């Protein structure tokens, strides 16, 4: 009387293919970033990348937007007849440097503030929270505009900072922007970790606070910090582009934002000079998002409101 049922594997295939799709996103992101970084690093050596200042001439003449996308200049030329592709690669160098630099600054300072606030609680936490709240109350872009706009004056007033280049100024500015969100996430994580039994165990073994923070809490913060840093990198790169677009970028070498800004008025004339830097920016941000998502899944981190 066995009523054998057809075994229902309903849904199993879906799970598998969804996993595969996510995997593809991650693979794509990694591949794009590897190729881009490789080109950016070795731009001067690679034969298919023109030098930064090389002009692509039409019959010996440097011509504004002389070429559209094609074989001669893969992604066309810009308004002073530079190769857009080469410029995008040099832009990548600049953009990635700024993005990574800013992330490191934000992660170090924000991470430290977050750990201290979360671990010690009390007045330390309250003081740090006020700073973080103030930073968060200002829209990020507004803060960035203010900071960058005033850097010349600051350099004049505090002469010790005079050696900073424009690129470094922007890196530091974006780094400051990243502090508050990082601090907030790290603090939340630390609050959770310090209640865990292994922290209590370490303290009951006679470990000092410093040791508890470095040996017990920090290693457990790494996955969250890496994940947030990768996702944050995407956001910072977009922010850099936006700043450059608003006229507060690095003039030389151009970043993608600067390129977009320079070409956007001629959008109807030469779409490629705007759209391709946009594409580079988009693909890079997308890659960081894919990788960030992959890491979040791998480390099982709930996405915090970054």
């Amino acid at each position: 009387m066995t009523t054998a049922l057809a075994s229902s594997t309903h849904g199993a295939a879906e799970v598998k293919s969804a996993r595969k799709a996510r995997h593809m996103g991650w693979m794509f992101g990694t591949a794009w970033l590897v190729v881009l970084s490789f080109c950016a690093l070795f731009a001067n050596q690679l034969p298919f990348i023109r030098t930064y200042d090389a002009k692509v001439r039409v019959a010996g003449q440097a011509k504004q937007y002389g070429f559209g996308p094609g074989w001669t200049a893969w992604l066309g030329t810009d308004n002073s007849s530079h190769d857009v592709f080469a410029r995008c690669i040099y832009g990548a160098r600049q953009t990635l440097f700024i993005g990574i630099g800013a992330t490191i600054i934000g992660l170090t300072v924000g991470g430290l503030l977050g750990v201290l606030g979360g671990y010690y609680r009390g007045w330390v936490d309250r003081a740090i929270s006020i700073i973080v709240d103030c930073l968060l109350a200002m829209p990020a872009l507004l803060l960035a505009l203010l900071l960058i706009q005033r850097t010349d004056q600051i350099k004049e007033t505090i002469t010790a900072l005079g050696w900073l280049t424009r690129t470094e100024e922007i890196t530091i500015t974006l780094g400051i922007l990243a502090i508050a969100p990082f601090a907030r996430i790290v603090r939340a994580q630390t609050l959770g970790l310090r209640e865990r039994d292994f922290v209590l165990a370490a303290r009951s073994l006679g470990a000092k606070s410093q040791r508890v923070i470095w040996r017990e809490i920090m290693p457990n913060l790494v996955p969250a910090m890496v994940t947030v840093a990768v996702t944050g990198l995407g956001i910072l790169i977009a922010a850099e582009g936006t700043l450059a677009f608003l006229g507060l970028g690095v003039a030389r070498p151009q970043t993608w934002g600067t390129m977009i800004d320079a070409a956007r008025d001629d959008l109807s004339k030469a779409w490629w000079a705007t759209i391709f830097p946009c594409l580079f920016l988009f693909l890079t941000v997308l890659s960081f998002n894919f990788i960030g998502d992959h890491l979040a899944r791998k480390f099982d981190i709930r996405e915090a409101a970054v």
Partner: protein
Amino acid sequence: MAGTGKAHLRTEGDVLLRVEDLVVEFPVGRTGLKVNAVSGISLDVLRGETLGVVGESGCGKSTTGRAIMQLPRPTSGSVLFEGRQLTDMSGDDMREARTRMQMIFQDPISSLNPRRKVRDIVTEPLAIWKRGNSTEQRAKVDALLEEVGIDPQRAAESQPHQFSGGQCQRISIARSLVLEPTLIICDEPVSALDVSVQAQVLNLLEDLKAKHGLTLIFIAHDLAVVKNISDRVAVMYLGKICEVAPSDDLYRAPAHHYTSVLLDSIPVPDPSVAATKTAIEGEPPSPVLPPPGCRFHTRCPAATDVCRNEEPKLREIATAHFVACHHPLYGDDVPVSVA
């Protein structure tokens, strides 16, 4: 004094730990209210003895264990350990003193750092106190791991999540033994484990206790487990001690109504005994606003006016058997004279 008395504290014998009038309170947010987690309890443990502490959740048994370790420091009271007063020790002295007493926690997974290799976790105490060079440390740790039944080779390569709950508890035990402490506070060490694994861990604790000459404070909610491992048992209810007695006496002739209810509530794996008892009504009141008088009076079948107004003190009703109750129960086989 609001305490439940100190009649049960012993004067003779090698007293390793003596806790007097321990009070632990936590603020509730910023309301000005406080949780009276532990409200003036006194305990002592002789060297080599196992003291069991039982009670339901929220009775303050875990808080007591932690307050003895000064994690966090108790609100008031004295903790005398190996003749030294812990409550007014400086931070560094306290860290030093903690090496002589160790803790094992309820959740075996959570008490091990998930991002470190198991052997490093067990070596950590030695690293903190810089005892011995790395070869000596390693030899000692490997020997201990063997002793608790963990393969040192695997421990060197694996992180805690690669071990089962029971194995993680063994690792915790190994870690607690590395500094050669005299006292180990076991906070519900087997509650999260399956019965078959629970038996393994309990046997292991007994073996290690004998071998290393340990003194144990064993905190649990499972009376059968506590009875099995303890020499002397203290029953707690809502931050107070109700009854203290040698393990077998307590279970044979509980004198406090709460103890008796607790014993009757345990489901016995024997259909001929089971399902004949009546359950007690209600649940423990909030430790934020504990009832006056005897804290059990709201649920006690024998409560009278005196119980509602006057707090009972611990008194001896049989040899080494102490109870804090105005109307204690007298077992048939325990002849006593009431003062």
